[in-house]
């Protein structure tokens, strides 16, 4: 088949303009080749043949290759779980024949029959044992492999209450993790993006890599960046806040089918925990980043959020009695203060009595 290429086909293949048309068709050259086809200088069949040869060799459009087939099946296989144990064994027997068939024939000519049968008997038993061993190995090998690669690429960090952690991820991204927050990082080489999962609050200074954007998923919100710095706050039962300090990010919220809200510097996106509108406003840097500089900022903060902040910050738990008002908001700044001083401040504004014993704080509202 290969030798039948005639001169016209050869000339087309060697023609720069023709190749350009095949590999990057654009309108102008398209017309030229169509014309030449109609004038019958070269037959349409020849144009087609030359085109196919070029595409087959130099474009992406060649047939699926066996190694690609294997890779794809491996990917599918590792993403689909079979529940029944017995079926797995059956599958291995049918798809992977045991590799021991070739050798015996070599012995036949040199050994007499009785030795041969004795030998075969041993060989059969051995093969059987090897076969069982092979099956057992196959049974457990795939699981071990996936576990190993998962361990190698997925890392989890947790900042205990009262302690803020500074972390540098494998890719060079710097993260400050607020007290009581959990961060999981996945940089599997096979993935097209760096994946981070966050519960709580963290500040990210993303190491630039335009090939592999970093996505932080937190509280049902995904924030994608290439190389920027931003702060995400995503505590259970609170609004999610994404604040951009430098660069650009795109925020997606799958549950309401918004896939790319773009933020500018110094903008914070507030995604309400309950019903309400998503809002985008400029922010006060102290309020958003204060926690990374030992600064507690309450700016019209709800009482419950303030308590959560203090619990995580100082690693204590609160017990509250006699809450008098329903919607209680707090404002105030505390720079590197002890819990006692913060409580002293709150004592007057909120009209409360408090008591700190070890890691427990009791608050009693003064009811007038």
């Amino acid at each position, binding site marked *: 088949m290969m030798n039948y290429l005639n001169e016209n086909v050869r000339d087309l293949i060697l023609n*720069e303009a023709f190749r350009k048309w095949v590999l990057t068709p654009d309108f102008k050259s398209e017309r030229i080749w169509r014309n030449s086809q109609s004038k019958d200088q070269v037959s349409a069949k020849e144009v087609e043949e030359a085109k196919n040869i070029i595409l087959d060799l*130099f474009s992406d459009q060649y047939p699926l290759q066996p190694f690609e087939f294997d890779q*794809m099946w491996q990917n599918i296989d590792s993403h689909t779980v079979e529940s029944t144990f017995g079926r797995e064994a059956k599958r291995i027997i049918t798809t992977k024949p045991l590799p021991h068939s070739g050798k015996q024939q070599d012995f036949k000519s040199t050994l007499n029959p009785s030795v041969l049968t004795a030998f075969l008997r041993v060989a059969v038993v051995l093969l059987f044992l090897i076969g069982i061993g092979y099956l057992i190995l196959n049974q457990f090998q795939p699981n071990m492999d996936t576990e190993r690669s998962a361990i190698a690429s997925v890392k989890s960090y947790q900042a205990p209450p009262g302690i803020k952690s500074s972390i540098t991820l494998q890719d060079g991204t710097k993260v400050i993790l607020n007290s009581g927050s959990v961060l999981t990082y996945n940089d599997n080489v096979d993935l097209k993006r760096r994946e981070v999962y966050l519960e709580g609050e963290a500040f990210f200074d993303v190491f630039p890599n335009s090939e592999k954007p970093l996505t932080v998923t937190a509280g049902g919100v995904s924030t994608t960046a290439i190389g920027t710095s931003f702060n995400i706050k995503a505590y259970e039962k609170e609004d999610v806040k994404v604040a951009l300090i430098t660069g650009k990010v795109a925020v997606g919220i799958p549950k309401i089918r918004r896939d790319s809200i773009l933020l500018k510097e110094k903008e914070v996106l507030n995604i309400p925990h309950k019903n309400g509108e998503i809002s985008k406003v400029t922010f006060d840097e102290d309020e958003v980043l204060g926690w990374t500089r030992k600064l507690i900022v309450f700016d019209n903060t709800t009482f419950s959020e303030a308590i959560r902040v203090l619990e995580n910050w100082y690693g204590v738990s609160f017990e509250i009695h006699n809450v008098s008002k329903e919607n209680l908001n707090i404002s105030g700044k505390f720079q590197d203060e002890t819990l006692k001083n913060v409580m002293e401040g709150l004592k007057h504004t909120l009209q409360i009595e408090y008591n700190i014993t070890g890691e427990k704080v009791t608050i009693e509202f003064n009811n007038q």
Partner: protein
Amino acid sequence: MVESKKDKEALDRSKEDRYWELIMEGDKSGLEGMFSLYAYELMAFGLRIKADRELVKDCIQDLFIDLWKYRENTRKVEHVKNYIFKALSNKVKKEIKVRVKRKEIEQFMHTDVLEEQMYHHESKYESTEEEPNPRLKSALNLLPSRQKQVIIHVFFENIPHKQIAEIMGINVQSVYTLTWKAINNLRKLITLLLIFFGLDKF
């Protein structure tokens, strides 16, 4: 000839129905069988919709993963092959839209980075592929060095023939002859590699 093609189709139909049943029963050998039966055809089909190898491969993988994941919710299917090919077509079209959108976002985020813009700018004009695909690369490595050189100049660096002649110290006619020789050798090598090694080293 026609008869055997019909036979093959009938055989495929009976296989696909069996594999489909196995999948619905939760037996993964059905999924593997179905994948083996149609992966090659699906790849060719997908590439006709969008000449982007990685995109099509991703879509085929997703398709089979979904087939398994949602097997319990799948309604009865009359013609399995049509169903699978239609599903791939939908997936590829959807993925194209997603990537266009993603590219817009990435470009938006890149507007500050001068380097990045220049890169995009350049690639618009040198629009053939920047690098030989893995299959071609492995065959190229087996070519005599002059033939390999001429292919790289002609097909990947898009240098005019006249200039190539100067670079390689030969006349323009020899550039044509050498290119033609190289192309024929490449076609043979690719077939050979496929037969003997399955190209799985690359």
